[in-house]
């Protein structure tokens, strides 16, 4: 700011003269800071009714959230430990990296009627898909268009094989989840629809339909699933789902949808290929069959949170009302002004 105060040239001197004989400021509500304004103040009435309104809104919302959550039927089966043969359990990493057969059979029981669509998820725990090294290791332009095939600088260490770019490159694609599930109900195969599990926007705009996997999983270390090089990326929905990296270290990814209802008492046999190595960082793997409500999956937290906040607000409304009745203060009473409270002490 100092620069422009110094700028007025005394030689021309117009500035000082102008300053001295400045015109009377034109009166306007704006310049006098008298614009019409609303001046709300927190009166007990306002505050108590605010709390009441909040509680009146929040408690029902909490209740319906809880109901929504209760409506969701969810079957969770953790299999990472059980699907390793007992003798191999001392060194799970060696087992999973070895060549021994990985097939595993699980049986699930439906305890409550599940209406279609039933979503099949895999859930990983302790898997940091949001790790800094991991999330950066991708090339979004490469995914979109074959033109940018060579934009792999961010993808290290999974960027190329022998100088040829990997498509899709990067750690995220490389670590694509590769456990597979085959479901059957009461010994009849249960179809799992794997179409339409990814976002439409991703399929249409983010993953190109002319981009085909190249050199994928051809490096020295195989991370996860391989991709069919004849199917364009926009159709590789498992990849698309996987590459929407999860925000939190415990997450689910959609595997497929079951489009028939499951009845109470049904048993579901799952034949799964336990290929994916979460053992090196003690990650858990779970298979989840779940319906959804309008609010999402099974999670009571929000309902409880709403009830708690609504309850607190109700309590506060009550408490303030009592306080107001017991010890009211007349609003705008000048005798409360500090200089009126202790006369003589005209601080």
């Amino acid at each position, binding site marked *: 700011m100092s620069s422009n105060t110094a700028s007025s*040239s005394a030689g021309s001197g117009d500035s000082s003269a102008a300053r001295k004989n400045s015109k*009377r400021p034109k009166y306007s509500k704006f310049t006098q800071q008298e614009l019409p304004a609303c001046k709300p103040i927190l009166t007990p009435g306002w505050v108590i009714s605010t709390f009441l309104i909040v509680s009146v809104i929040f408690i029902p919302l909490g209740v319906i959230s809880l109901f929504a959550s209760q409506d969701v039927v969810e079957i969770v089966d953790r299999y990472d430990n059980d699907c390793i043969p007992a003798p191999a359990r001392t060194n799970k990493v060696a087992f999973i990296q070895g060549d021994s057969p990985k097939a595993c059979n699980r049986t699930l029981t439906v305890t409550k009627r599940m209406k279609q669509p039933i979503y099949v998820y895999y859930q990983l725990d302790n898997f940091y898909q949001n790790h800094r090294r991991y999330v950066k290791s991708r090339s979004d332009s490469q995914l979109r268009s074959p033109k940018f095939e060579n934009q792999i600088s961010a993808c290290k260490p999974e960027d190329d094989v022998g100088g040829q770019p990997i498509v899709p490159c990067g750690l995220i694609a490389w670590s694509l989840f590769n456990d597979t599930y085959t479901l059957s109900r009461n010994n009849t195969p249960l179809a799992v629809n794997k179409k339409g599990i990814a976002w439409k926007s991703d399929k249409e705009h983010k993953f190109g339909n002319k981009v085909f996997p190249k050199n994928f999983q051809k490096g020295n270390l195989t991370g996860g699933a391989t991709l069919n090089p004849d199917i364009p990326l926009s159709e590789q929905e498992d990849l698309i789902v996987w590459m929407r990296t999860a925000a939190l270290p415990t997450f689910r990814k959609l595997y497929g949808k079951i489009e028939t209802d499951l009845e109470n008492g049904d048993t579901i046999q799952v034949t799964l290929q336990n290929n994916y190595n979460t053992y090196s960082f003690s990650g858990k793997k779970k298979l989840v069959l779940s319906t959804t409500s309008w609010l999402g999956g099974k999670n009571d937290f929000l309902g409880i949170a709403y009830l708690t906040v609504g309850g607190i*607000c109700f309590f506060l409304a009550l408490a303030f009302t009592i306080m107001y009745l017991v010890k009211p203060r007349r609003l705008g009473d000048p005798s409360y002004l500090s200089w009126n409270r202790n006369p003589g002490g005209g601080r």
Partner: protein
Amino acid sequence: MDKPPPSISSSRWSNVSSKEVTFADLASKRIRHGSAGADSEMLSMSQKEIKDEDARLIYINDPDRTNDTSFDFTGNSIKTAKYSVFTFLPRNLFEQFHRVAYVYFLVIAVLNQLPQLAVFGRGASIMPLAFVLLVSAIKDAYEDFRRHRSDRVENNRLALVFEDGEFRDKQWKYIRVGEVIKVVSNQTLPCDMVLLATSDPTGVVYVQTTNLDGESNLKTRYAKQETLQKATDLETFDGFIKCEKPNRNIYGFQANMEIDGRRLSLGPSNIILRGCELKNTEWALGVVVYAGSETKAMLNNSGAPSKRSRLETRMNLEIILLSLFLIALCTTAAATAAVWLRRHRDDLDTILFYRRKDYSVRPEGKNHNYYGWGWEIFFTFFMAVIVYQIMIPISLYISMELVRIGQAYFMTRDDLMYDESSKSSFQCRALNINEDLGQIKYLFSDKTGTLTDNKMEFQCACIGGVDYSDREPAESEQAGYSVEVDGIILKPKMRVRVDPSLLNLTRNGKATEEAKRANEFFLSLAACNTIVPIVTNTSDPNVKLVDYQGESPDEQALVYAAAAYGFLLIERTSGHIVINVRGEMQRYNVLGLHEFDSDRKRMSVILGCPDMSVKLFVKGADSSMFSVMDEVSYGDVIEATKKQLHAYSSDGLRTLVVGMRKLNDSEFEQWRSSFEAASTALIGRAGLLRKVAGNIETNLRIVGATAIEDKLQRGVPEAIESLRIAGIKVWVLTGDKQETAISIGFSSRLLTRNMRQIVINSNSLDSCRRSLEEANDSIASDDDESVALIIDGTSLIYVLDNDLEDVLFQVACKSSAVLCCRVAPFQKAGIVALVKNRTSDMTLAIGDGANDVSMIQMADVGVGISGQEGRQAVMASDFAMGQFRFLVPLLLVHGHWNYQRMGYMILYNFYRNAVFVLILFWYVLFTCYTLTTAITEWSSVLYSVVYTSFPTIVIGILDKNLGRRILLRHPQLYGVGQRAEGYSTTLFWYMMFDTVWQSAVIFFIPLFAYWGSTIDTSSLGDLWTIAAVVVVNLHLAMDVIRWNWIAHAAIWGSIVAACICVIVIDVIPTLPGYWAIFQVAKTWMFWFCLLAIVVTALLPRFAIKFLVEYYRPSDVRIAREVEKLGTYRESQTMVTEMNQIQDPPRR
């Protein structure tokens, strides 16, 4: 005057010059304080001999030779522009990076460029800095372009320069030192020049220095008699000037001129400066001595001194706390990352989301982007610094500047602070201390021109010991005195109310002794002064007005008074004056003039009267006059006059005493020879002149005494009362004598009748100490009584710079009013310093004259009154205004608002940035302690720039916690600022707890709600972004007091803008978060989370805010209720207010 300089022995020479060095030091020390103390500098400068190494030589009318010497003179072209096309970029960047904030930005951006630390993309990390730099650069470039343009206009103006035997037009930029220039009436001077000749035969010119110091009255400058005749033939003009090096003192100049082997000394009255305008003189010839950037005007052309606001200084503590907080966060991140890496050190090579080894290079693998455990910790730490950088709210500094500009705009546009009489509105000269106006505890005020109008009005005359003070009633609107000369009616411009009996007396002529005395009295008033009469035309061609211009308002008042009684001063040249005595023109030769100086405290003039007698007239302060009176012959009259003077001064009038003496021939001749010797002396000239004056000013016959009323400005008593109720201690510092000061004290309601007056009026250190200690004890014993301390300048000499300062401070603190009289300018600064060094309370000094400059600059806040005494005070001040009473709206209204707004804005900025940083931090705990941000990097950058900044600036400029009317009605509300209730470390901590709570709510509600779900990073990031923006803006909304349309637009607009930005970022397909916001906003979960976050985050604040405001109401809160609900019980509060005032005194 034609003598060569007297030869002086070398020993004495050196003696004197060594003494002069101290003078010079003093002078240069003064200059630092601006152009203060003009008078004293003039004295010291004229006494100073120029040393060769400090001088420049100018050969008159020989620019080639002048510029050929080893001195490096600049040309006359000026360059106020700072940059050229080529230097703009480097210089502008260099200047911009002088701000610490920018350096911080830069360091962070550079850190981010290191590949190991690259948290943000290149674009996102550079953008904010580049944006700010670009905006400032454009602003600077535009300003500089305008300067270039005005420079060009200025440099191409034309002036008449003597070349090859005639005067030719020449562009200003080609004018060289040594050239002779002719300036005609109303022209602006192109450079500083020494006068050689003027159209006036006596060599007088009148100049207006408005452009230089803002004073609009005419100043007289003289050409030397010796050069007057010579200048008619410039071709043969041969001589040189030896003058001091260029300096910025516009009131001092010292040089010698040598023509034809004779040496003349030149002083400030012989030079006219660049930027002045020639008035009332047809033409003037001068030789250029300083040109271009070396002119005094250009050297003075520097910025105002910069002060830092108290709030900003206080804020530094919290900034340090925040830095520690930042370091703590970064350390936590680094430490937890270290633990995780250590625990998984064996698996890092293959962990799917880590993959330390790159196997494509060698079969056994090579570390990829991993530099070892220690380095990883180190990098994590600095990455954390980059990610959490906005914890230190750098944008706050920029916002504060914008807010202050906005506040300044509203202060200058305030209708209440526009001065109708001088047509000047309020000025904010310093832009960085607006909020200090809300915390003032001590007010130091000058009296003359500040509390009073400095429009002197002649009230009473005491002639020959007889008092004439019956003024004619104001209603009788007579035409006033006028006289007809050659068919033209001359009228004084200002009417003065006259005493009819005295008027009759003067009209009756010389009939009686009394009448004779009265005539003599008014003759001396008309003659003994330095006023320049200027005859101006009116709409009626037959009527002309006589306007009296002069530097002293007292003299103006006296000359107008003389005119009203028929002694109309019509003409003044350096050689004679013409006075019209009731129609009869009388010409008096001015044989000698001893100007007023502060040592003698009087001035005198020696006139050759029409009756061929020579008379000496002296006028001065009573204290200095009675000692030079002939007490033997006129003892009775002196006694009577003294009594009368006492009565006058206890009425608050300013008094002067007039004396005269007839000089006989021998006396006159003796005086003349010594006067000439003194006035051509090269060293100690002022001292010699003073001595000559002292010798002749003796044995005077008392003629009379005058009393002038220094009228209080409108609204001063009310203003002082308001300020007092507001808890501001008002100290009045005046040069007046004690009685006058006390009476002004009463009339301005600074003092009241029931105050006990403690007068300290001592002549020695011991007595001073004794009376101070007595005073201290007497106050301590009895604290119910209000006390006024009155101390005079002599006592202050003993007190200041001494251990007595403490005692004085204690006494002064306990007094309700302090009045310092007969204070010298330097003491004013001393008193301010005395208070400033002993308390942390804010001080404000207000004054209007050059003598207040030191005080104005010493105080935390300096206010200048743009009044009668020129503009030095304004130039040195931080704020300038037209009237003292504007202080009330300035402090009580604008100061209060500015302080509240700024305090709140700082806290809010800390909060809003910390909330965001904490959200980022919480997330790091769930990303394996790596600095991933779910919120996109563009949102992190835009958060403090776009999403949340605009409302704080708008609220910082516009919000008002209370209305203007109620603030003025209850000055006590000002205490909020004095007690620093708007911003304190306690408030900071409350704010920080709230911050932690709010950030936790914003972060953890979605975290738990989405735990183990399919939520992806970008969607959750968008939810956090929007939640943070909404919460932070609603938090502000909760504290907004006045919801006008601008506040609505800013707050809701910001939320909308943030949503639009989030959407825009999410429609870019190459970013990972493509379409996330649409996907997530489709779900009910998103909206349920948002609602839960907003309500839960703000709930505690809302409840506590209400509880505090309802059960522990602050004054501001009560006042707001009063304002809103109108439950104002007029009668009751009026009673309580009146109790405070305690018997409003009226004179």
